[in-house]
Structure formats: structure tokens, C-alpha cells
């Protein structure tokens, strides 16, 4: 018996089964894995088929932050049941396609560069936030439609304060149709 997971690394999906003997099957290939905790709650050493990796791992907001050789990866691990529930929910519709853009740092909103209803591309500038005496552009994490803007120029914002909401362009189209 094994437990099956769908694992998303920065978006890319892997089908992984963890076997009773501790080995792992990834996309069909079985890999022996020896994973030990080292220190500090976050540092692990993993040896998989002889390949040695120092892994820094922490679970934040439902996603695993993995640091390997100084590179950061965001990993979401879903088991079968969670996956099924989500897929059912998605079939039933719902605002799951919305993305809330939050302030990555406290600062002063200098200018808002978009309007509600605007269709913007990924990486498009959304607003300018001044912090550390520098003007920083906040960009779109994904393509989408600006559904709501919650701040205005001249206002200060706190860390993680919601700035605006990006809606799914396809969902919008469906809603319009």
C-alpha cells in the first residue's frame, strides 16, 4: 500500500506515491529516500538514490517553502481526498479564480496605475508604493481583470494589507455570457 499525492512545484505537477517502506514513486519511478531532520525545525538532509541534498523546509500558508542550494521553491502537496473535494467545488463554480494582491511591505501608495474592469497581463504594473525612500512598482502576479481596488494614492498601507483583487479573465467572460 502507498499513499498518493499530487505535488505542485511552482506550478509543475508531480504524481508521487509514498510507499510503506519509506521509498517514493515519482511519475512511476521508484526512488529510495533517506530523509533526516538536522536542526532548527527547518533543516533536513535527504539522500535519494545516492543524491544528497540539504533541504530547508517550512510550511507557510498551506504551501511548503523549500530551499535547495540557495534556490527557493514553493510546493503544494495535495492528497487524493483534498484533491477530489476541490475538483468537485470547482465544478460547482465559485470565486476560486480570484487573486488577492496584498502589500508586500508597509509603505505609501504613490499612484494607482490600473482601473476596475481593466484586463491586465502578468507582470503589468499595478501601483507604485514608496518604502525605504524608494518608489517600488507592484506588478500583477498573473493575468486577470481588475475586480476591485481597495487603496488610493496618498494612503499608507500595512504589510499584507489587501491592495486589489484580480479576477479570472475566462470566468469573467463566462459570467458575461
Amino acid at each position: 500500500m502507498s499513499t498518493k499525492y499530487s505535488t505542485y512545484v511552482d506550478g509543475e505537477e508531480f504524481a508521487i506515491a509514498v510507499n510503506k517502506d519509506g521509498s517514493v514513486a515519482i511519475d512511476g519511478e521508484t526512488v529510495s529516500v533517506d530523509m533526516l531532520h538536522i536542526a532548527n525545525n527547518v533543516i533536513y538532509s535527504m539522500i535519494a538514490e545516492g543524491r544528497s541534498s540539504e533541504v530547508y523546509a517550512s510550511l507557510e500558508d498551506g504551501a511548503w517553502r523549500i530551499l535547495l542550494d540557495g534556490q527557493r521553491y514553493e510546493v503544494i502537496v495535495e492528497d487524493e481526498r483534498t484533491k477530489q473535494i476541490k475538483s468537485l467545488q470547482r465544478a460547482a463554480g465559485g470565486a476560486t479564480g480570484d487573486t488577492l494582491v496584498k502589500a508586500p511591505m508597509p509603505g505609501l501608495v504613490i499612484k494607482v496605475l490600473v482601473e476596475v474592469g481593466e484586463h491586465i497581463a502578468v507582470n503589468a504594473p499595478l501601483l507604485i508604493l514608496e518604502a525605504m525612500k524608494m518608489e517600488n512598482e507592484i506588478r500583477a502576479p498573473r493575468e486577470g481583470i481588475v475586480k476591485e481596488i481597495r487603496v488610493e494614492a496618498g494612503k499608507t498601507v500595512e504589510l499584507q494589507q489587501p491592495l486589489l483583487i484580480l479576477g479570472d479573465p475566462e470566468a469573467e467572460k463566462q459570467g458575461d455570457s
Partner: protein
Amino acid sequence: MKESSRKILVANRGEIAVRVLRACQELGMRTVAVYSTADRNALHVRYADEAYLLGPPPSAESYLRKDKIIEIAKACGADAIHPGYGFLAENPEFSRAVTEAGLVFIGPSPESMRMMGNKVEARRIADEAGMPIIPGCSSDLTNDEIVAFAETIGYPVMVKAAAGGGGKGMRVVRDAESLPAALDAARRESTAAFGDPAIFIEKLVENGRHIEIQILADQHGNCVYLGERECSIQRRHQKLVEESPSPFVDEAMRKQMGEVAVAGAKRAGYVNAGTMEFLVDRDRNFYFLEMNTRLQVEHPVTELVTGVDIVKEQIRIAFGRRLRYKQEDIKLKGHAIEARITAEDPYNNFLPSIGTIASLTEPTGPGVRVESALYEGMEVTLHYDPMVAKLIVHGTNRANAIMRLRRALGEYRILGIKSNIPFHQRLVENWNFQAGNFDTGFLAANPDLMDDWVPSKRRTAAIAATILAHRRRQQALVMVGGVGDSPSQWKIEGRRRAVRRN
């Protein structure tokens, strides 16, 4: 007075305060730190023999409090003040006030600081000393006058703040339409950063390299140059990587640049450590840009290739000692590169990142030097500059240094904040960087260096996370409740959807 009985106050914070404190300690001198309430636990406070509170976190109420710093220095019996870089390092009134209080200021005189610190006046002196300069205007023009001047030199132009440095206020403008807005923004930034709205414009030298010459001058008329630093890897006019020697400079050019730098310093009556910045075009013509009348962030690369401890020399010079080096003693050995480590997210437009350092492993071993303000448990806040550390490597040649930098970056582990280490890791893999083919437009021309990329270890990350998730699931009786109970369900959804579309 015996040097070892001297007491030095360091009027700064962060990695540079620690750097200067170490130099004092190695000279057998006693040390004094000053701090804002945000820095009560900072390394420089714990490192110094004595530490005194300046005030609340904002710089204007702490590290820029000239009066309070001098008062503390006198009360605790300090002999001298080292200003580091930034804050009061290029403030002529501070230099004067320190001296008038009967203390030694470890830096240039207020006169030469004022002269060379103002970019416009410095251009005049450089011109008089025979250095080539770029056409530009003075800093007392109105916006309308500047727009008119721009027509006479032609676009593109560079907007600059007359005071200060660090890229604040700088902007490239390519047409007349954009100029007025750029002038406004630059004045805003310059006022916020330096309390001075004065700006000016210069003709933009495109695809130039930023190369600078380090000089040391004593009070007895001796002045040497310590080779050059290549600082062209910049983002928004902020240096990210510096090296010495420059892959672009040969022995003849080094000598030529070094000699005009020394001539300029002598003309300004300059004493202590300083840096002449040049813009170098594709045909190896170099133009004087500005002088930094203080220690530079990137001084360690020069230390590693010359063997000269610039901070110790600064202190010796300030106490009236003669330079220990003649020009012929200065030989560049090997190659050094510095990577500035900042609390910024390279995958998200270099936005400053804040948080508590949960875990820290700094690289070490052969040829690796770390200058750092980081420690486990440290709060990285938005009060001060996002540069939290510097990684400097030394190798027998440039290729060895790059491979060593690559190795050291792979060892660096900072948990709790996002850092720009992944950016540096991509940079060292870039063939043009490896070949030395770059100028100040390099990052703008290679935006992929700052994008998300597909690293090679996704599969490893997937296995590691899955095993940890599996263990957590085994431990917990009930794992996930209903959907939507996680605070970042939206984000997760967004990420997964982003994939599906690919």
C-alpha cells in the same frame, strides 16, 4: 598617545559598523557603538565595548543626530568618530562639528567634502584638474530651464540629485515629453533621501561601464590609487556586484585613470579614503562622474587584491600617520568579486522583504569573506537600507573567483526573509557575465535574470515536500478540514490555475 589606548566611536549601523569595529579591535583600540531603539540587539551594539542609545528608529531621530552623537562621544571619552558610509559620512557640517568638538573625524575635511560631495561642483574641479567630464547643467535651474538645456545637449539624458548617491533620484529620460514628470519624481526622492531637492541633468552615455578608482591620501601630501573597481552590474543605478580588477581595464588604462584620480584628489586637497567614479564608453574613453568622499560599500574587493586594509589606513591617516604604501607597492594579485546581499525578492521586482531571520548559514572556507549584519533572531525591518550583508570572494583569476562565488552562494542559507541570492546565482551562470561582456545596461537588457526561472531541482523539491507532508499527515489524526479554511486558499488556487493554463 599610544594607538592602543584610543577610543573610537562608530556613527553607523549594520555590516559597515561591524567592519569598522573589527578594524578598531585589531588595532587594539576601544570601541563605542551608537544605536536606535530598532537596533538594540544589533550585532554592532553587541560587538562594541560600549553602546549608547541615540533615539527612535527613524534616521533623522537617531543615526542623523549629529549633536547627540558628538555629545555621546565627548561623554564617554572617545578620541575619534568613524562615520562609515551613508548617514553622516558625507555631511560637511558633521565633519566640522566633530573637529570643533576637539575630536578626530575619520574622513576628509569639511572643505574638500563639500567641494567634492556636490556633484556639480565636483564636475567643475574635475574639469579644472584635466579630467574628461560629460556635458551637463548646473543644479540651480528650474524645471523649465532644465528642459530647455536638454534640447541643447540632446536626448537621452540622465537626471541626477546634486546631493548624495546610491541611485536615489536618478532617472534616464529618452524624450522631452517624459522629462518634467521625471524631474518631479527625482526632486521628491532627493528631498526624501537627502533633504535637498536640487537636481541636474547630464547627457546619457549609453552602454557605458561604471568603473571607479580607490584612492588613499594622507595629511602629508602623499596619495596613491589602489587600482579600479568594476561596478557595472547595477539595477536602477544601485550596484549589485563589484569586482577588481575590471575585465575591461588593462595596465595602461589603469595607470591613466589612477593618475588623473590622484591629480583630482590633490587639487581638492583631499585627505583620507575616497573614490573617483568614471563612466567608460565602448571605446575606452572615460568620463568623471562623481567622487565619493568616504569609504565605499565595495571597498573589500580592493582590499583583497591589494592586501591593503583600507579601514585601518583611514584610521591611521586620520591620526596624522603617513601612508605606509608608495604607488609602486600597490600590486593587484588575483581577482575579487563582491555580491551585495539584500533583503529583496528578485522574483518579485526586488521588493524589500521583511521578517525575522529564522536560520542563517553563512558561507566560509578558502577565499571567502562575509561582511554581515545578520544573526538568527534578527528582525529585518523597513527602517533602513535593505542591504544586510556582502559576500566577497578572492581567487587566483576571474574564472576561479566566479566559480568560488558560485560555490559560496550555494552555501548561503537565509531563512525568514527573501533575499537576492537567487539573482546572484543566475548571474554567475550567465555566459556574458562570465565572459566579462556587460555594461550598466546589462540587467535592463537581460530581464530574464530577474524573472522566475525553472531551476533544476524541482523534482527533488517535490520529493522532499511530499515526504514531509506525508509525515505530518501520519502524525495528525485529521489533516485538512474543508476547503477555504486556509488563509491563503486564494493564493494556492491562483498558483494551481496558473499551471493548468500552461
